[in-house]
């Protein structure tokens, strides 16, 4: 397989505006939740991981003044600003010219500018801005990418699916570089919907823990630059990926975990690896009862129950269309530093199949890692990252 390298990245969450800023916080166990209260939404307060609007405005102005001093900042939505700041940071160290025909931008988002449906925001932007393809076009044209961007919206696997699609495009020789950016904001629309599902935890989420009681939502945006030519210092590659569907229920995961296990098996096979080659797994780990149970079964079927694993959602919540991208970046960062990160919120195992949830930061040599994700619509995704030093 033609190698697909990671050439640059960025994470934006409540914990910071660059990969290093965020990872430094996570390494010392800092989480990004704040209590949020809206009397229309919920009788009690909710922990949410929100991106600070003032900090976003400052960062966006900086990007704008460098790239497009002639533009008005009010021309961009909150989510577009997040994407632009994230992509700008991820590509700034890249020496190659990305504004050529051999580069594609892939955007992953579940709900895009859905907040524009809210009263008071509706009239600030033209109606077409609600469309996801328009979101992608706004971001693509800001950076001057030659090819029209590709927008993937496939529930909570969107980010991993975008990375999988992008790496396959490079492997097929369609592009030399693909910039993959995932992002979602928290709106009344999304929060009320998850509340109506009774899926939200009253306290910061506790993935795989016996006391887990639902997910916590977070805002996030992340960018990974994949390339056939450029590489980061450890030459980390995407070595395999696969997608599957449970064919069981539109809003509940598989009872057996077989289908996620099937995606894991296919991804490992493509990477030409066995289960014991994997040193670390970044799970989806939403902290809902059913998701975590299903994932533990899938890992067990795959022979991965002893492999150290975590969920990064205990740090910044479930960031929806960003989750697969930012959790993959955190994973590759663990590969670079050989430091596996504690699964925040975890104390005592609460799934029926024993798995190895990381309860204390762990220094080990890491060669290959697995990132998995699952979402509404029964979709599952698995992607393998390998170090080529």
């Amino acid at each position, binding site marked *: 397989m033609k190698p697909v390298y990671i050439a640059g990245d960025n994470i934006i969450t409540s914990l910071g505006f660059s990969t290093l800023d965020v990872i430094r916080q996570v390494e010392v166990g800092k989480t990004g939740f704040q209590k949020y209260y809206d009397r*229309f939404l919920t009788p009690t307060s909710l922990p949410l991981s929100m991106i600070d609007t003032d900090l976003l405005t400052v960062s966006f102005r900086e990007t704008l003044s460098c790239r497009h001093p002639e533009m008005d900042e009010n021309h961009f939505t909150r989510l577009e600003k997040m994407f632009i700041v994230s992509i700008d940071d991820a590509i700034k160290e890249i020496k190659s010219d990305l504004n050529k025909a051999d580069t594609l931008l892939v955007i992953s988002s579940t709900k895009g500018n859905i907040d524009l449906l809210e009263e008071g925001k509706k009239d600030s932007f033209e109606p077409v801005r609600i469309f996801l393809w328009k979101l992608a076009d706004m971001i693509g044209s800001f950076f001057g990418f030659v090819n029209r961007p590709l927008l993937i919206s496939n529930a909570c696997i969107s980010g991993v699916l975008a990375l999988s699609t992008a790496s396959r495009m490079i492997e097929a020789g369609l592009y030399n570089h693909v910039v993959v950016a995932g992002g979602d904001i928290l709106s009344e629309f999304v929060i009320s919907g998850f509340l109506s599902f009774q899926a939200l935890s009253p306290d910061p989420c506790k993935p795989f823990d016996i006391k887990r009681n639902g997910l916590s939502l977070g805002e996030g945006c992340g960018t990974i630059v994949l390339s056939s030519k450029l590489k980061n210092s450890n030459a980390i590659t995407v070595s395999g990926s696969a*997608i599957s569907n449970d064919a069981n229920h539109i809003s509940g995961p598989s009872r057996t975990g077989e289908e996620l296990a099937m995606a894991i098996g296919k991804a490992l096979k493509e990477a030409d690896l066995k289960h014991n080659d994997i040193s670390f797994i970044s799970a989806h780990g939403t902290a809902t009862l059913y998701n975590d149970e299903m994932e533990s079964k899938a890992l067990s079927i795959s022979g991965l129950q002893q492999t150290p694993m975590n969920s990064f959602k205990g740090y910044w919540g479930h960031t929806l269309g960003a989750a697969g991208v930012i959790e993959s970046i955190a994973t590759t960062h663990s590969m670079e530093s050989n430091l596996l990160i504690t699964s925040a919120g975890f104390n005592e195992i609460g799934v029926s199949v024993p798995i190895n949830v990381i309860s204390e930061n762990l220094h080990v040599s890491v060669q290959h890692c697995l990132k998995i994700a699952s979402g*509404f619509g029964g979709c599952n995704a698995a992607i393998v990252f390998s170090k080529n030093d």
Partner: protein
Amino acid sequence: MQPSFSVKMIDRYNMKKTFFITQSNIIRKHAVTRNDKVEFNNEIFINFASFIKSLYKKEAISYPKFYKMDNLSKLGFLGAEMLFKDNTFFDRYKKEDIGIVIMNSSSSLDTDLAYNETIIDKSNYFPSPSVFVYTLPNILIGEICIRHKIKGENAFIIADQFDPGMIIQSVRLLMDKEHAQVCICGWVEVLGDNFESALFLIEKEKSMNEDYTGEVLLPFTVECLTKLYQNN
């Protein structure tokens, strides 16, 4: 067998390996076309709800879950059902080898607007989980998978218009490298009473298809997708 139109097309495109459009259907307000032939003309269009109900009845499908689906899922579900009709399809492929790639322009906006109605008026606030779950476009793919226990690759892509080049690129990414042996692909768009569905079954071997016996088989090219899409 005599060299057909399709064989010449294949030579002309000189692709590494040509795949075939072995089933197709286009569903629009005024007509439903199956394999490039008009299945029926719909002279009086009242609204989406009555249209889709009459199509469901015409296709003689019995699947109670259909009534719980949102409009996008209903339309795409019926399009997919029509691809599988009169076909030995499910005997020929493993469920994990069937890929689904669907695109549209407005994602799940049709249902997003319906859900938004339930939260916008604070004096009449009743967010519903059964509506909210359909505010993701790939739920349509999930519904098709549940119906036929399809467990292969999925992708939902948002583009501003029917884009045959993008359909081909996405499907070939799956089929060239054996991520899928066969694909259901195309365009399913619903926004209010404006809707359109164009779905295609893509297979590697033309000889597999029985439904087209004696007819011109279409290679999986931009020209053929465009022709099928426009001939309605």
